[in-house]
């Protein structure tokens, strides 16, 4: 329970039996109970520590200075005043705030605080002010962090240093100091030492701590960390085939789709510019995953990353589904989760392909229109190879809502418009060498394999545009299958 009992003994005499109280001047209750503290001092002889002013309380001599907050930190003081009873150095009781009867009972002083109110709530301990626990953990050397420490010389610029070490994706990173990483780790209840998965391509067991370090560098806030951890977990699943996604000459990169209550909790954007820049959570969560793959996994462009062209989403590509006014069930619901679950789905995708349709007001027309664009995914003459992520905008959704089309209905109708005669898309047909093998000549072919088309609602309220994020050429069991992982706290 206590932060390093051995070290605590340098602050409090070994085998101390009696009472320790911690107060601060900047606390009305601490000032209020000064007479009671004086009685305790006179009758019991106890240790009194002040967090902000060793001269407080003025009427009591021998107040101990805890302005460094080491005692408060090691005793895990959350509220002042706190009264702790120690028996031979071991804590037996603790009272936080002022409850006269409790203090009297514990101290066996039936007259203690006579004339004082029966109850007065305490104030927050300075040692638990925002950011302070991490600072104190760093200051007093109790960090659970295992990563190698690297000194940046005083004359060096730490941002340039990060570039020189090869830690960056080409954009500046936030230097991962111990204090920042400890703050980041406060975003999860998981142990820093927990292994999240084996990160390709170097197949490195990746700890929560290493993810937190890279999340700091990416610019994440601590509350994003659970999403990043879930994304890393998803990327490590064999189904997702991260090694192949990285190694391919194709455009593929892990694209994150976040569903559930956490989207609002961490302030993700699923409205205007939902696929674009400008929102910290959207921009940094996907980047954190990419930095983990780069730094922990060792996957770098020109190394195992053999992309011929790549795409800007390889800096990190994370979106949130617009759930609050969607007419259809969300991606997470379709994939077996409930509305209360927060999830991240990883999809091996390429760039964004816009679909414009400003004229369709009937669902039949719009479905045909969307299908026409979807047929071009990967290549207009290749069927059943690449998956796709279709992002329906609110204005296009309105057409389906108006006609009462469920998502299931839309999927069925869409599938009908995404099949074709194999002979029309064979290799060499239409004077184009690319295309389906001859064995498909007498068959109907489907553009997408079963489960290979993900559909998500996102975007601003105006604009009759939707979007396709094209999947990897090697989608499905031979390559990558989308993976959904629940986000844990």
């Amino acid at each position, binding site marked *: 329970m206590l932060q390093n009992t051995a070290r605590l003994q340098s602050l409090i005499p070994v085998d101390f039996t009696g009472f320790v109280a911690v107060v601060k001047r900047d606390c009305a209750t601490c000032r209020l109970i000064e007479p009671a503290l004086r009685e305790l001092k006179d009758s019991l002889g106890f240790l009194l520590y002040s967090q902000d002013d060793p001269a407080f309380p003025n009427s009591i001599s021998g107040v101990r200075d805890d302005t460094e907050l080491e005692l408060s930190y090691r005793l895990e003081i959350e509220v002042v005043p706190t009264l702790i009873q120690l028996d031979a150095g071991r804590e037996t009781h603790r009272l936080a705030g002022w409850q006269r009867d409790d203090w009297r009972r514990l101290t066996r002083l039936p007259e203690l605080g006579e004339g004082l109110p029966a109850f007065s709530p305490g104030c927050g301990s300075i040692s638990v002010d925002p950011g302070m626990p991490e600072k104190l953990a760093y200051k007093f050397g109790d960090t659970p*962090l295992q*990563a*190698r*420490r*690297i*000194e*940046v010389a005083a004359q060096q610029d*730490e941002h340039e*240093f*990060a570039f020189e070490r090869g*830690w960056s994706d080409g954009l500046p990173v936030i*230097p*991962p*100091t*111990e204090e920042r*990483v400890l703050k980041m780790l406060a975003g999860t209840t998981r142990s820093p030492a927990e292994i999240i998965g084996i*990160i390709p391509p*170097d197949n*490195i067991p990746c700890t929560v701590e*290493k993810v937190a*370090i*890279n999340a700091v*560098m990416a610019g994440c806030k601590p509350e994003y960390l659970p999403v990043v951890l879930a994304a890393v977990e998803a990327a490590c699943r064999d189904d997702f*085939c991260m*090694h*192949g996604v990285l*190694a*391919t*000459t194709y455009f593929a990169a892990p694209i994150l789709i976040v569903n559930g209550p956490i989207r609002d909790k961490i302030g993700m954007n699923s409205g205007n510019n939902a696929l674009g820049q400008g929102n910290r959570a959207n921009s940094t969560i996907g980047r954190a995953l990419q*930095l983990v793959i780069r*730094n*922990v*996994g*060792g996957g770098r462009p020109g190394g195992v990353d053999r992309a011929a062209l790549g795409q800007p989403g390889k800096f990190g590509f994370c979106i949130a589904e617009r759930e609050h006014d969607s007419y259809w069930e969300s991606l997470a619901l379709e994939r077996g989760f409930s509305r209360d679950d927060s999830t991240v789905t990883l999809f091996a995708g390429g760039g964004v392909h816009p679909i414009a349709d400003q004229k369709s007001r009937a669902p039949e027309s719009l479905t045909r229109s969307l299908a026409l664009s979807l047929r071009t995914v990967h290549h207009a003459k290749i069927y059943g190879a690449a998956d796709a992520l279709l992002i329906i905008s609110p204005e296009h959704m309105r057409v389906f809502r108006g006609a009462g089309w469920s998502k299931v209905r839309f999927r069925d109708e869409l599938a009908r418009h995404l099949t074709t005669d194999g002979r029309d898309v064979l290799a060499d047909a239409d004077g184009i060498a690319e295309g389906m093998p001859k064995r498909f000549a007498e068959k109907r072919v489907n553009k997408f394999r079963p489960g290979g088309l993900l559909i998500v609602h996102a975007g601003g309220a105006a604009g009759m545009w939707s979007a396709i994020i094209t999947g990897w050429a*090697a989608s499905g069991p*031979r*390559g*990558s299958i989308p993976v959904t992982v629940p986000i844990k706290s």
Partner: protein
Amino acid sequence: MRLLDPTSENEPAQRERLPRPQSLANKRIALLDISKPKGDVFLDRLAFQLDGMGIESRRFTKPTFTRVAPVDLKHQIASECDLVIEALAD
């Protein structure tokens, strides 16, 4: 300023490559198809040429080009053959 290392902190051992053989005489060659389009065309041609030179070859196939070769397959190749020629990309 003191930073935490974001990398794996691995320092992989450097291993020397095996010397290239002076000749292919009495060597058995593994022809590894990673299941990419037209890899078989390339390897068929090589097998034909090696056969014409009196050099034995054996064909192996990865289940999918998207994943690293299974350990069993790597072990089989290493135990049965002296050299590997891999049809890496289409």
